C-alpha cells in the first residue's frame, strides 16, 4: 500500500469532478466501464494531433510512428498480463465480446466436432456464452455448465466429470455480478490434465487484480480496455503462441492476407491474420497509457485498496440494513472483488438506481448480461455497485445514505 493513494487517482480522473443533481458524482459502476484518467485521454488526443496515420505499409514518418504506437500497445499489454511472446500472442479486437467470438469462430470452428464438449459456468457473462451457443447450433457439440453454489461460489463438486472428454474450459476470472473470484490456476491445471484447453474471461478482473497468464498457465485470456481505465473500441485476445499459429482467420479483409486473387486468398501468418481492416490505433495508444497508469499504481496495491473498501462496504450494508438488503455474492472478501450486487427488499433495482441517481450515485440495475445466473437465483435483476482504484469510503457513505432513502420511499 506504500505509495498508493486513492485521492491522487481521483484527482487524475476528470469526470470525478462532475456534479450530478447538485452533488459530487459517486461513481460506483466501474464494473460496467471504468473512468479514464487524464493521461489516457491525452494519449489519444496527442495521437490524433501529432501522428495519426494508417498503420503498416506506410513509409513516411507519421505512418511509422502510428505503427510503432499500435505495435507498442501489443508489447505493453503483453507485459501487463505477462504474455511471453506479445508480438505473436496479443490480438486486438473491439472488445471482450469480439475476442470470444473470434475464439469460437476460429479455434472453436476448427477444433470442435459433434462429439466434443465445452465447459462453461452458470455465472458467465453472455459474451462467454452466446458465441458458444451460436457455434454449437451449427456444429452440435455439447455445452456443460458448472453450477454456482448457494453461497455464490463455483460448484466444483462434479468438476472431474464435467471435464471428462471436454476440449475447452472457458470461465470468468471474476463474476461481474457476484464479485466471486474463481480459482483459475487450480482449474487450469485440472483442465489441462483432463486434456482440455482453458480460456479466461478476464474482463471483470483485469483492472482489479494482477493478471499473469504464464503463472495461471492458461491458453486464452480475453478482456476490454474500457474496463481498465482505457478507451472504448479496443479489446484483447491473448492466445498462447502455438495455438494462435494454428488458428484459421476470422474476419476477412485487408491486412490479414498474404495473397488475394480472383480465385481465392491465402491468409497471413501471426497476429495479423486476425486483424482485418484498419485497427483501433488511437485506442491502442489509449490502452498503452491505461496499462502504464495501472502499472504505476501497482495492481497489488489496487487489489488491496479495493479489498479494504469492499470489506468495509459489505460490513456496513449488513449492519445498517440487516435483512432489508441482501448482497448477492460472497459475504467475506476472501477470493472476492469489489462488485456488490444488491437485492433490496420490496424495491425493484430500477427504482433503487433511480433513487440513488438523485444522490449522484451511479449504480447499474439489470441482469448484467448474466441471465443464466439471474435465473439460478430467481432474480430478474440486481442493483450493482462496483469499485475502481479511484473509489473511497466516502463513496460508500453516500451509497448508504441513498440506499436508506430508497428503503424509506418504498418501505
Amino acid at each position, binding site marked *: 500500500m506504500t505509495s498508493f493513494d486513492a485521492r491522487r487517482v481521483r484527482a487524475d480522473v476528470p469526470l470525478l469532478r462532475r456534479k450530478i*443533481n*447538485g452533488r459530487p458524482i459517486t461513481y460506483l459502476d466501474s464494473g460496467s466501464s471504468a473512468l479514464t484518467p487524464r493521461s489516457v485521454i491525452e494519449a489519444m488526443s496527442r495521437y490524433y494531433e501529432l501522428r495519426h496515420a494508417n498503420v503498416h505499409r506506410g513509409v513516411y514518418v507519421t505512418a511509422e510512428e502510428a505503427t510503432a504506437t499500435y505495435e507498442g500497445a501489443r508489447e505493453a499489454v503483453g507485459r501487463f498480463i505477462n504474455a511471453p511472446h506479445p508480438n505473436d500472442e496479443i490480438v486486438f479486437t473491439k472488445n471482450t465480446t469480439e475476442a470470444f467470438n473470434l475464439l469460437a469462430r476460429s479455434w472453436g470452428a476448427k477444433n470442435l466436432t459433434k462429439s466434443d464438449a465445452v465447459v462453461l459456468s452458470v455465472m458467465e457473462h453472455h459474451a462467454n456464452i452466446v458465441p458458444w451457443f451460436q457455434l454449437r447450433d451449427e456444429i452440435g457439440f455439447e455445452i456443460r455448465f458448472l453450477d454456482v453454489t448457494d453461497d455464490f461460489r463455483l460448484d466444483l463438486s462434479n468438476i472431474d466429470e464435467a471435464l471428462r472428454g471436454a476440449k475447452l474450459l472457458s470461465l470468468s476470472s471474476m463474476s461481474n455480478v457476484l464479485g466471486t473470484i474463481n480459482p483459475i490456476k487450480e482449474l487450469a491445471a485440472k483442465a489441462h490434465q483432463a486434456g482440455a484447453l482453458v480460456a479466461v474471461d478476464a474482463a471483470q478482473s483485469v483492472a482489479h487484480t494482477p493478471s499473469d497468464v504464464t503463472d495461471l498457465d492458461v491458453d486464452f485470456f480475453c478482456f476490454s480496455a474500457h474496463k481498465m481505465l482505457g478507451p472504448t473500441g479496443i479489446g484483447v485476445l491473448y492466445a498462447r503462441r502455438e495455438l494462435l499459429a494454428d488458428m484459421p482467420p476470422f474476419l476477412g479483409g485487408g491486412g490479414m492476407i498474404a495473397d488475394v486473387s480472383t480465385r481465392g486468398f491465402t491468409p497471413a501468418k501471426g497476429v495479423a491474420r486476425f486483424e482485418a481492416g484498419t485497427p483501433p490505433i488511437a485506442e491502442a495508444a489509449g490502452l498503452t497509457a491505461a496499462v502504464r497508469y495501472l502499472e504505476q499504481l501497482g495492481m497489488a496495491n489496487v487489489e488491496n485498496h479495493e479489498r479494504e473498501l469492499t470489506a468495509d462496504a459489505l460490513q456496513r450494508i449488513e449492519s445498517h440494513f440487516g435483512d432489508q438488503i441482501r448482497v448477492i455474492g460472497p459475504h467475506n472478501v476472501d477470493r472476492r472483488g469489489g462488485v456488490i450486487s444488491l437485492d433490496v427488499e420490496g*424495491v*425493484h*433495482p*430500477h*427504482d433503487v438506481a*433511480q*433513487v440513488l441517481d*438523485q444522490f449522484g450515485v451511479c449504480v447499474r*440495475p*439489470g*441482469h448484467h448480461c448474466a*441471465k443464466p445466473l*439471474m435465473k439460478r437465483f430467481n432474480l*430478474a*435483476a440486481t442493483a450493482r455497485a462496483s469499485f475502481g482504484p479511484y473509489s473511497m469510503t466516502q463513496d460508500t457513505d453516500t451509497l448508504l445514505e441513498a440506499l436508506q432513502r430508497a428503503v424509506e*420511499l*418504498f418501505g
Partner: protein
Amino acid sequence: MSNLEDLYREIILDHYRSPRNRGELESPPALRVEGFNPLCGDEIVVYLDVTNGTLSNIKIAGTGCSISQSSASLMSAAVKGKTLEEVHKIISRFKQLMTITEGTLEDGSEPEPIDLASMGELAALAGVVKFPVRIKCATLSWNTLVQGLDEIPA
C-alpha cells in the same frame, strides 16, 4: 432539475404497493398478451376479456419496477369496463402524456394538446417524462395492451 417526488408520486407508490386487477384470466376465452423489456428484464402479461365491444375484464401479471407496475395497475383501472372506443381514447391520451420524446408508443402517431384534469389518476404518470429512460417502463403495459387489441378480430 427533476426530483424524485415528480416520479414517485403518492398515487404511483400506492398502485405499486397495492396493484389493482392483479392476477390471471383463463385463456382462452381471455386473450393473453406478453410484453417484455429486454433491457431491464421486466415482463408483463395482460389478460383481456372483450365482450360486445367492451373490455369487460383485465388482469395483469408479471414483474417489474414501480413505474411499470403502477402504470399497468393505473391502466387496468382506467380501461376496465370501458368500450373499445373509449379504451382507444384513453390509450391515445396516455400516449400524449408520454410524448415529450418521440416514438414512445409504437404506432408512431402524433400527439395532441393534453388536458391533465380529464385524466384522473393517470395524470400521476406525467412526471415520468422528465426521466426519459423510465418512459419505456411506463409504456410497457400500454404497448402490450395495444398489441392485444390489435389481435382482436374486428
